[in-house]
């Protein structure tokens, strides 16, 4: 899926060392960020990102878990960014080992992972055909999250409501 680069409403948050960028339009509510590091990423707080909540390396680690480009980061010192490999950041999507299954590198075709997020949605990733409400679509390197709690306002997709209603399962 492409995300519009000219999104509006993006935010950035800095500490002395790094800046974290937040693009709400790219978020699929997979919820890695607040599960890993609620001290920094707390959706119930305003502003929801508190860069003082944890050490820089822990923040980087958590941002790297984000399966989309909703959260990305950069060193404040521009020169340092040159030595950051793609495998160390999520600027390039789908390259991170965390999202591959047990060291298995999927062939181009038929690589579909279905993740049941704790108390959250079903996250579908890969090449698949999706049918919903009379629509039928082929996805290549798709990333879609399907509501499991039943409370989303954008069914069948997850819109983050599971957290508000305290869904468990």
């Amino acid at each position: 899926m492409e995300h519009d680069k000219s999104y509006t409403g993006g935010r950035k948050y800095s500490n002395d060392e790094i800046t974290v960028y937040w693009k709400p339009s790219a978020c699929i509510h997979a919820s890695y960020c607040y599960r890993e590091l609620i001290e920094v990423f707390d959706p119930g707080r305003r502003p929801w990102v508190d860069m003082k909540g944890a050490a820089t390396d822990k923040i980087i680690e958590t941002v790297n878990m984000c399966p989309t480009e909703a959260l990305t980061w950069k060193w404040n010192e521009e020169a340092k960014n040159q030595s950051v490999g793609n495998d160390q950041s999520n600027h390039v999507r789908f390259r991170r080992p965390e999202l591959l299954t047990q060291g298995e590198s999927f062939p181009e075709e038929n690589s579909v992972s279905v993740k049941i997020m704790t108390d959250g949605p079903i996250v579908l990733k890969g090449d698949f055909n999706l049918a919903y409400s009379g629509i039928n679509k082929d996805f290549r390197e798709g990333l879609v999250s399907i509501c499991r709690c039943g409370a989303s306002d954008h069914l069948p997709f997850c819109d983050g409501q599971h957290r508000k209603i305290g869904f468990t399962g």
Partner: protein
Amino acid sequence: MEDNKEKKPKTVIEVIDSGPLKISGNFILKDIKRDKETPMGEVWLCRCGKSSDKPFCDGSHKNK
């Protein structure tokens, strides 16, 4: 030109109206909470939040 582009994805995912999510074909299901990972041919996953056999559908959506 490229054969690959013409190929249909072999994994088919269907959102059943007021029912579960049906997934068939080639995929790996990973349940993070229950720490299970299974390659399966066909599954029905609960979308209503009421199943007592999560992540699978047990028909509970019908008793609203």
